[in-house]
């Protein structure tokens, strides 16, 4: 086995142990638990509220745009964090680059806003 593959041995062993642990605990619980199912016990747990309707209910398409905009700023934050951690070392150059980056993303929001996407009909 080459050194390159050997370095992944840790991952393989870790994955194996993790899998065995989960299977072991769940299997043991399965073996030991008393089981007296009733209808109330079998329904999905919804924070104490009785669930209603079908699990495959359709959600509003307009949530999609909000999700998309959320992802945009979520990813933006992913890039801002490492920059913020080293902002002193990156200096003015880094600041300008980050401003350019944020402005480009803000343009996307401006576009969405002018297109009326943010209006909740």
């Amino acid at each position, binding site marked *: 086995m080459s050194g*390159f593959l050997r370095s992944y041995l*840790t991952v393989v062993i870790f994955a194996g*142990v993790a899998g065995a642990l989960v299977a072991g605990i769940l299997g043991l619980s399965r073996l030991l638990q008393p089981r007296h199912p009733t209808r109330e016990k079998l329904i999905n747990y919804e924070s104490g509220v009785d669930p209603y309707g079908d699990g495959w209910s359709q959600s509003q398409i307009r949530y999609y745009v909000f999700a998309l905009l959320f992802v945009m700023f979520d990813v933006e934050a992913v890039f801002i964090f490492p920059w913020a951690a*080293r902002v002193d*070392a990156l*200096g003015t150059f*880094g600041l300008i680059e980050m401003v350019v980056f944020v402005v480009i993303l803000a*343009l996307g929001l401006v*576009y969405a806003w002018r297109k009326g996407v943010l209006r909740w009909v």
Partner: protein
Amino acid sequence: MTAVLLAVIGAQVPAPGAPNAGNSGAGLTPDLAPLHLPNVEYHLLLPFLILMGSALLLLAASSLIRGKFGRGLYAGWTVVTGLASLGWTWHLWGQIVGHSTGTHAAPRAAVAGSLAIDGFGLFITITICSAVILGALLAESYLPREDLEGPEFYVLMMLSAAGGILMGEANDLIVVFLGLEILSLALYVMTAYHRRRAQSGEAGMKYFVLGAFSSAFFLYGVALVYGACGSTNLAAIADFLSKNVLASNGVLLAGMAFLLVGLGFKVALVPFHVWTPDVYQGAPSPATGFMAAAAKTAGFAALLRIFLGPLVAQVESWRPLIWVLAALTLLVGAVLAVVQTDVKRILAYSSVSHAGYVLLGLEAGTATGAISSNGLAGSSFYLLAYTFMVLGAFAVVTVVGGEGDGRHGLNSYRGLASRRPALALGFTILLVSQAGIPFTTGFVAKFNVISEVIGRGGAFDYVLGVLAMLAAAISAYFYLRIILAMYSGGADGSSGAAEVSSGGGATTLVATTRALVAVPTTLTVAVVGCVAFTVAFGIIPGPMIHLAEKATLLF
């Protein structure tokens, strides 16, 4: 078991104070390594920045300013942007490569070695800028006709082109991936742009799913090559491969295969071509033309740069693979095009076949010297020639497709020569050029790549050369079929239906509206430009060959 685990982990963790501990320090340790900010050569990046900035400006301006812009403003803006980018690229070409054999600066790496500003990169930039200009001319009349007027199409086209340029000049596998994503994401949306046409959405979906799949392949290839060579930088990979002999190159071979699959999807090589006809057919015609030209150019640019650059050290391992892919792509593309009856699908399969010819240059495996033995120059020449041939062809398809972008059957072309003789003549020249008839760039391009392969002199090279000529002969059939359709059939321009004789002498009624198709000025300009380019450089190929020979790689 636990002991083994700990032993393995213990072997991986360096002892405190080990030499490499400082470099891998987490964010909060006080002894951070100093940052080396790259020197950004903005003037070398300008062709990319012009397209990117112009796209953002257009998007911002059009969304902030109330009121309607005059028709043609968006297209005009895009053409001007393309020309500006092209102009600056030409200026850089003079600086870095030299218009003549005078003194000039050498090709150089930019932005800390992540970009290579060399002849090849600039050549690709020129090709993609041409595609932007022609694409904008095609879209100018298409979008209002289909009631899709707006800046978005042009913005996406410019962004996509910027990604393509990045791919052409990338000197780092990560930058190639970045360019690939910028190019592709914009193209997915452009494909699905025709909202009221179900085919368009379907094509966009197919292209997106398969494209994302191929991106994953490419990324995995990058990871494996990084694992084998210790860097994603092409110069560093070249350096590593020249100084080290790999005892077992399994990881590198797998990495190369994945890179080939990922980029093969983008340029539609044969086992990975199945998306092409559906996407080409479904996408709006100007988007199809732009996609055929720019995506293929950018994908091949990355493929050629990676495989003829650093991985040329492994040429004996990848050449057989390229041989098989080229042979398959040439023949399958040509044969499947024969049975199509939809002109957009014919052009899609023909674009697959063209990808096979470009691949011949890669199979030749050389990147310097005269074009008769220089695979890189042959492929570059082919890409530039193909850009004009295919965009010109799709300009005609845009016109004939008519309102709704639906009339693409061969029947719709029947009698075009009598209704629009000039348009039919232009289309004929462009198709004849794609078939590879002399006095067109298509012929010169095919001649170059085939002579490069044959020039290598091995038995397998002769076989591939013969296969390529065979594919050219097959493809002549379906190009001539379109031409025949245009020059046969009803000269009757006004009636609602025309009688066309079918094979057995019986007559069938072809129910298409035979109204005269109006050819907008911008499309006339595009077709005339493409035909002029194709014929001029077909008769006098010298300057273009000279340009392609100077398109060399930095590493």
